[in-house]
């Protein structure tokens, strides 16, 4: 992830208005929550490495972690956009289930075990996901229903419809190429699923930090009325952003089918909360206007690394929930205090020490 800061590069040293202080760039980086969270992640990794040695610091362990993170990472890209607009999407887990059910049904009726069947499935899953996301976006932008309510409703409806379609029984017939794709294929030494996730993350990061679409996403989360006044089509943009989140859920559905070889009707009830937690831990503000894909990646790895580490060290993995929940609350606390401090124009030194203790 080459893109870290939304504000971009301050390469131009000659700046008549800008009196560049030598430390300003470093200072800005140090003020980014992602950097501190990255520190937390590194501390966790070092701690487990010390405790478990090679068993933890092995390629196989990390490729397992990456495998586990892949689906959430794809969902996290859409969620990062949504949360930056100061919205929320609770429905992604259910939309993932719905899309995977639709895709599985379509692939079933198409028949065959080859790539053509799988690609039909991908198309079906994306269409299903985008349809849900756009509907969410439409209700939020045009009908002015709060995102929390719209997506809470969609969470329930999408899962319900998936159960109606399947009678509540998982569909286990998935084309072999999909499961093979997960198990056997490695691209540049990276297992297939994490590789797909990596590509999605990079594209998501570039779109968010380098394009107009991304800039408008920040602007809407930062000052919606202001964005309207400069002529940004806010409603349309919100439909696109929620549509993107739905599309990511559709893609996640295919990755999940490849990973498990079955739909996961009962298995996604906490997916939304886990992804939201990761996005928020990664420094994306629930108040909108701030965030990054890089942060989301870090936020995803913290719970995944904790889980893997606890298993290897022999601590009951229940502690993962305790740890992640604490980090989440701490992250939001830091975010909020920083906002208050920024309003007062004060430094946020004391808060950092709080974060430090949370390690």
């Amino acid at each position, binding site marked *: 992830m080459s893109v870290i800061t939304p504000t971009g590069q301050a390469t131009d040293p000659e700046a008549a208005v800008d009196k560049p202080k030598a430390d300003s760039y470093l200072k800005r980086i140090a003020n980014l929550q992602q950097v501190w969270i990255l520190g937390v992640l590194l501390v966790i990794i070092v701690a487990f490495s010390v405790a478990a040695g090679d068993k933890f610091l092995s390629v196989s362990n990390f490729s397992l972690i990456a495998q586990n993170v892949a689906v959430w990472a794809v969902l996290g890209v859409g969620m990062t956009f949504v949360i930056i607009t100061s919205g929320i999407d609770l429905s992604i887990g259910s939309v993932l289930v719905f899309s995977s059910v639709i895709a599985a049904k379509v692939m079933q009726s198409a028949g065959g075990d080859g790539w053509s069947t799988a690609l039909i499935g991908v198309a079906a899953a994306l269409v299903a996901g985008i349809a849900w996301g756009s509907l969410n976006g439409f209700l939020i932008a045009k009908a002015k229903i709060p995102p929390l309510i719209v997506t809470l409703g969609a969470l329930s409806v999408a899962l319900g419809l998936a159960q109606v379609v399947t009678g509540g029984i998982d569909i286990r017939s998935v084309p072999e190429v999909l499961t093979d794709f997960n198990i056997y294929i490695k691209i540049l030494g990276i297992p297939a699923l994490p590789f797909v996730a990596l590509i999605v993350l990079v594209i998501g990061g570039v779109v968010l930090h380098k394009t107009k679409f991304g800039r408008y996403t920040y602007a809407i989360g930062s000052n919606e009325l202001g964005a309207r006044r*400069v002529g940004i089509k806010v409603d349309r943009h919100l439909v696109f952003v929620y549509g993107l989140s739905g599309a990511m859920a559709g893609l996640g559905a295919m990755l999940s089918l490849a990973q498990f070889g079955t739909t996961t009707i009962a298995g996604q009830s906490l997916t939304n909360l886990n992804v939201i937690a990761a996005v928020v831990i990664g420094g994306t503000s629930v108040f909108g*206007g701030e965030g990054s894909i890089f942060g989301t990646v870090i936020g995803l790895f913290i719970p995944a690394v904790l889980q893997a580490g606890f298993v290897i060290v022999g601590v009951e993995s229940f502690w993962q929930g305790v740890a992640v929940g604490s980090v989440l609350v701490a992250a939001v606390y830091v975010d909020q205090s920083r906002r208050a401090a920024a309003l007062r124009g004060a430094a946020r030194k004391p808060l950092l020490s709080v974060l430090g203790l949370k390690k």
Partner: protein
Amino acid sequence: MAPLLEARGLSRSFGHVRALDNASFDIDAGEVVALIGDNGAGKSTMVKALTGNLDVDSGELLYDGRPIAITSPQQASALGMEVVYQDLALAPHLNPVQNMFLGREIPRRGLLGKLGFMDDKTMRARAEQGFRELGGTVRSLTAQVGAMSGGQRQQIAIVRAISWADKVVFLDEPTAALGVVQTRNVLDTIKRVRDKGIAVVLISHSMPHVLEVADRVQVMRLGTRVATLKSAGTSVEELVGAMTGALDSTITRKEGVS
């Protein structure tokens, strides 16, 4: 010579309230006109009607002497008119450059531009130029606007407006939330904008400031223009008198219309 922008007999009601009642307004090119009046006199409504933010029930607008219907803020922008709102309408998480070009980003050349990529370098250079011209107090073009002082934010909003407006800039109470020094900066800025040949419509409650920078003062009361005075030779007392109706001589109240 026809005024640059003229409104004739604008009326607009919100329910039983007549926000604009046969109100008129005019401004010449390169002129500073102050629009004053008590709260609820219709100043902001007038600005909205002039800039495509509000449909009027009746009345007409003339631009360069020709009748025109301005139906959207974008159309007003295309005509070279920009508004600096009281709340400034800046995105606090974006930096001054990003704010200045928000909604008008310069695309990169070629395919990348079509894909939505932006030419940050050019935008930054142009923003620097804009801030330099105004000799402002904005120190950093890379810090978030939200972390800046009220005066700096005001300056950013004004620079943004004049970078896009080549005809008229509307300033809605630009000094209301500012301290003494910042207010002075804004007033100087207004003069510099005028010197560039851009007309300025200034809404303000501060009579001394109005008399200092404006060429003419148009007074509104109860949704209509009740007086137009040249700043030169006019006193604060006269302005207040016109605002409150204490000096009613030319005004006939149109009662029974509503």
